[in-house]
């Protein structure tokens, strides 16, 4: 077992032109080029992608689940941000 560990990378793939990159999984690699090649070899074997992003896992900052109520619940009552909130004549294609 090597004393040092290979860093973890997260892999994001654009499956078709026009779509966003989507997280598909992770892998271990020593450097960006190797991570890119491993992502290609591992995650696009069945033509799953046309573009790859790789990101060092430790560079990702994520919200904590304990923050969820403070972060996301306050949006709950802002229903006026949605088109269905407004009362307009239906036949005018507004």
């Amino acid at each position, binding site marked *: 077992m090597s004393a040092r560990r*290979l860093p973890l990378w997260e892999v994001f793939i654009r499956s078709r032109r026009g779509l966003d990159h989507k997280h598909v999984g992770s*892998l*271990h*690699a*020593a450097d960006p*080029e*190797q991570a890119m*090649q*491993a992502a*290609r*070899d*591992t995650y696009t*074997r069945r033509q799953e992608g046309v573009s790859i992003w790789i990101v060092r896992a430790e560079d990702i900052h994520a919200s904590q689940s304990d923050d969820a109520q403070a972060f996301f619940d306050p949006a709950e009552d802002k229903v006026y941000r949605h088109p269905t909130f407004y009362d307009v004549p239906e036949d005018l294609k507004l």
Partner: protein
Amino acid sequence: MSNAHFSYVLRLGDNALIIGQRLSEWCGHSPFLEEDIAMANTALDHVGRARMLLTHAGDLEGAGRDEDQLAYLRDEREFCNVLLCELPIGDFAFTLMRQYLLDVYHLHLFEALCRSQDEVLAGIAAKAVKESSYHCRRSAEWVCRLGDGTDESHRRMQSALDELWGYTDEIFAADAVDEAMRAQGIAPPLAELERLWRADVEALLARATLSVPDDNWRASGGREGIHTEHMGVLLAEMQVLQRSHPGLAW
């Protein structure tokens, strides 16, 4: 069609088949999981290429032999791959160094073959050139990484290169088949491929802090069926079922 045409395509098919066979031996035994997957991809590209090339060779021969008859029912003396392909996998350094030397050759070869007068071959080359372009990027990166890595990896890479170098001349030694193919516009001149190959390889080896061995030992003979002693063992393993149960479907 000429006998030379058949021989030429068969040689390419045998190279692909035998290196594919060697690479597949790594399956499940690579230094880490990501590499198991990557190595299998490269092996699959070569097996796929072998199937297309051997099928084409069988068609050119016109004797009704398909890819499997050519792969499984010929003896050692009838195989015409270069010796470089058949050497045992050795350690990871040996496998990747060999792969790099072959990948650069294949990249330039298939780039040229895209313009072959043999349209089927040009079609196969168009597919193969994309694969080889990735193979080169991958194995070149490995040569640098291991050549310029630790003392141990450097030592292993240099020793692999020392062992392999004497087998590279054979790839570019033009014989009557190559000459006939060049004359018919089916294959590129080998001297030109060698020039491109040498320029790439020497530049990369320098970047990888590796040095080209200066001894004069050279081995060849694969294309005439004079193989290393490893070849018979490789074939015995690969062909065992077809040979021990002749004529059956699998």
